[in-house]
């Protein structure tokens, strides 16, 4: 048995990891977790409804028809029944989705951007700027969020625009705190000190290194906050300070429906379920996002 020893040195088999596009990895991860998937589907459904709402709606949500007042669900063509003005509840819930989506997204956009800027400034530049900004944050946190929104709304008046303003005023604080702590953590990381050592300018560092790393926490926090804002809007509208009738919004549908709790239960049931499903969807997706993108960051 002759054994010949080839004089070949082998390099390790190059295990090529295909450079998967981000989108493919995103979906492959998503498919693996059914909660994330459910959350994602609910959000997509919500977006779809809020964009194409008025075309897919069986009845005109504003059309008052007193002959068909307070019909229980499933009666003459009204899937979820009608309200005290004879308007189709199913259609109003669909239109209501738009209000919640608009409120959720715009508030997160405004509060997110403002909060992030403050967070970066106070986290990165420190000094007295940081102290002042953090005192402002403390002041605002010295007051329960929902109450602050109520007070502001009661004062600047109700309506879609005002509720977004008050939610944003109340909501930016959480972004500032989380982003600030992220920036503080990033500053200490070796690769930042390394950049400083190689003479990269402070703002250069900020944009080239710090900002990209903030992308994940911002996305995660935004998705988690949307749920809080939607529920906050519903609560404020329920108390009569938020979106005013006749505009169909889940909050004020509950407000109008609460007087009929005895005779027509469906007035308060379905809008509540709509809010719950929306918040559930957004939270599920937010949690999944947090667990996959950045396990350590505990959602506030």
């Amino acid at each position, binding site marked *: *048995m002759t054994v010949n020893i080839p004089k070949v040195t082998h390099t390790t088999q190059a295990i090529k990891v295909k450079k998967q596009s981000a989108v493919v990895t995103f979906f492959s991860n998503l498919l*693996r977790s059914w909660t994330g998937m459910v959350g994602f589907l609910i959000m997509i459904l919500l977006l779809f409804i809020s964009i194409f709402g008025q075309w897919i709606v069986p009845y005109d949500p504003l059309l008052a028809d007193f002959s068909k007042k307070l019909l229980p669900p499933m009666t003459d063509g009204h899937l979820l029944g009608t309200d005290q003005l004879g308007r189709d509840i199913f259609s109003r819930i669909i239109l209501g989705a738009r209000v919640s989506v608009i409120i959720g997204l715009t508030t997160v956009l405004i509060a997110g951007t403002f909060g992030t800027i403050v967070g970066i400034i106070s986290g990165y530049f420190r000094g007295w700027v940081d102290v002042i900004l953090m005192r402002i944050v403390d002041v605002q946190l010295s007051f329960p969020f929902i109450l602050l929104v109520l007070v502001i709304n009661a004062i600047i008046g109700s309506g879609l625009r005002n509720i977004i303003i008050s939610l944003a005023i109340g909501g930016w604080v959480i972004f500032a705190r989380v982003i600030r702590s992220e920036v503080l953590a990033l500053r200490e990381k070796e690769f930042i000190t390394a950049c400083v050592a190689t003479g990269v300018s402070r703002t250069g560092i900020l944009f080239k290194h710090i900002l990209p790393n903030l992308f994940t926490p911002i996305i995660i926090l935004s998705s988690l906050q949307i749920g809080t804002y939607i529920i906050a809007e519903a609560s404020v509208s329920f108390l009569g300070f938020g979106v005013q009738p006749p505009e169909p919004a889940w909050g004020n549908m509950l407000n109008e429906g609460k007087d009929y709790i005895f005779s027509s239960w469906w007035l308060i049931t379905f809008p509540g379920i709509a809010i719950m499903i929306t918040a559930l969807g957004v939270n599920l997706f937010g949690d999944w996002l947090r667990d996959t993108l950045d396990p350590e960051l505990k959602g506030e």
Partner: protein
Amino acid sequence: MSDKVLQVNDLRIRFRNGKETSQPIRGVNFHVKKGETLGIVGESGCGKSVTSLSVMGLLPIKTSEIVSGEILFNNRDISRLKEKEYRKLRGNEISMIFQEPMTSLNPVFTIGEQLSEPLRQHKKMSKSEIRNNIIAVLKQVGLPRAEQIIDEYPHQLSGGMRQRVMISLALLCHPKLMIADEPTTALDVTIQAQILELLKEIKVKNEMSLMLITHDLSVVAEMCDRVVVMYAGEVVEEAEVNELFDRPLHPYTQGLMKSLPSNNERKSKLFSIDGQVPKPSEIGEGCVFANRCPFAFEKCFAETPPAFNRGKHISKCWLQDPAVKEVMQNEERSIVNS
């Protein structure tokens, strides 16, 4: 067999993480004789810590599973003991100290509270007896003012002192076997020497056998009687310590030896083995070191080498195969660093 405190035969462990499973330990064999110090050496990720945890039964129940093989402690297979049974051993007959002294002690409990646990679990003792016992052991490991330390919190002690506390925790019940998983890695050099000295002394005084896990060959040289070299979940070489240092048989061990900075002459470039340790999921048939071995030939890739022994010196490499050996002789090549 009788003089062997611990006997591990063909141990295979599988980890399940979500859908994928991996086998960090693929057939490990070694033993520890009474009063002996066995060194387990290998790069990080070679499975030495998993092995030590499996001996202590500390592997996570949900995600790990001992597929086959057995762990004999005083000739009794403890690999599949029920939790209640295993608990009787832990800290009593087998004890363990860990690498990170800074995090291995509970920050919100005093040293005394934590050290009383093994005694409370395994020995019937009154409070005062426990206290005196602890103070005695703390003194034994060379901790000054033991009486104060017993009521202090971990954050009040230095790294070295905490490791001494860990050692005393492991000694309280006079175990037959102590496992030390990289006990000095996290400490700075001066303290390292003291702790190693302490371990040697204690082993002798308590007629204990010691299983020392490390990646540092100088520690092995200093402390161990016999050495087991592990690579990617397998034992690739086992030998008496001087035998191993004089004539390493397995190319991986040779590589390890060469990368040791010998202190007498300065080498321009430290020798390092190129490539990395393959992930458990990537290991195919053939010798596990094949893809990094300078002498590898197709047989190495085709078939897993069995364990060849030269007296007590065992190694798993086709080069030890007598058939291959002759061919080697006439080509007489020595390892030249490239």
